[in-house]
């Protein structure tokens, strides 16, 4: 009889503990979304050759060794225009540490639409005119803004579709600027 009572008590304690555990787990906030992807999960950013306002061809490969914020936007996109002043600030703040913003405009009307906007807003970073081929390479870009934060090795470390917080970008940039180029190779060798 005594043994039965002990078993019953133990079973009761175990049940209560399990229930408390479930409640505790359900009340925990979801894990924070990482600012940047792990090295092993980063994909190579597709290279492209797009022209800037002076007609000069710009390749993404030209930026190797730098952290790049690649912003696909358009003058007809309201949410894009919220982010542009942030990107101008990032360009000013982080450029000396090996960072650059590259805007890719998806305006169908081309420079006729882009130039007045870029001039009026005094954009301090380079803008190139995008095309369908580049859009396809970057997943179709159905929605704008779509922004990629690219590490010093030319790999996509963060992707943002739609308007996000300024801090999401600055945290990612800070983290990538702290990591030296070739970080992926070092990590790969470590895991061998």
């Amino acid at each position, binding site marked *: 009889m005594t043994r039965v009572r002990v078993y019953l008590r133990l079973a009761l304690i175990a049940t209560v503990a399990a229930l408390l555990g479930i409640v505790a787990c359900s009340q925990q906030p979801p894990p924070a979304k990482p600012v940047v992807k792990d090295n092993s999960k980063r994909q190579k950013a597709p290279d492209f050759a797009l022209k800037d306002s002076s007609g000069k061809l710009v390749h993404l490969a030209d930026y190797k060794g730098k952290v790049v914020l690649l912003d696909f936007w358009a003058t007809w996109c309201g949410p894009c225009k919220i982010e542009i002043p942030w990107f101008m600030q990032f360009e000013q703040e982080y450029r000396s540490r090996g960072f650059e913003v590259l805007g890719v405009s998806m305006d169908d009307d081309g420079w006729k639409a882009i130039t007045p906007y870029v001039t009026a807003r005094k954009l301090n970073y380079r803008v190139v005119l995008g095309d369908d081929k580049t859009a396809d390479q970057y997943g179709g870009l159905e929605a*704008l803004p779509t922004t990629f934060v690219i590490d010093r090795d030319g790999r996509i470390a963060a992707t943002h579709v739609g308007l996000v917080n300024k801090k999401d970008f600055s945290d990612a940039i800070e983290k990538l600027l702290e990591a030296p180029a070739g970080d992926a190779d070092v990590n790969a060798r470590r895991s061998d």
Partner: protein
Amino acid sequence: MLTLTLAAQTSPTLTVAPVPTVKAKKGTVATVTVRAALPPGFHANSNTPTDAYLIPLTMKWTGGPLQADGVTYPKADLEKYSFSDKPLSVVTGEFSITTKFKVPVDAPPGPSAENGTIRFQACNDRMCFAAKTVPVTISLNIE
């Protein structure tokens, strides 16, 4: 090509309701209303956007026996969005576009069709989508 997770970020569809066959008498004016709808949570710029950079809602008639003689767009709403300092002139939900057509006296009698397009550029409160063109066809019976 990159494999991205862009679920729930796909471009909204403008649904255009079928227009009942229009009886058009030669030498008169026929009025045709096209009803369209955007999904909840999305807006499109009206035909008179508040910003010159924005792409307006447009209805164009591209082919058929009738002569378009004025398009009346839906009354725009002035809506404030988190991404804009000032309210935007937009259409949301269900709306109608009405066109007046002159029916030429020499229009061929019998069944025919008038073709057109609606061009719209939609956004939600976080992102925008490239302008799309939706075909519209009206069945006619010219008398």
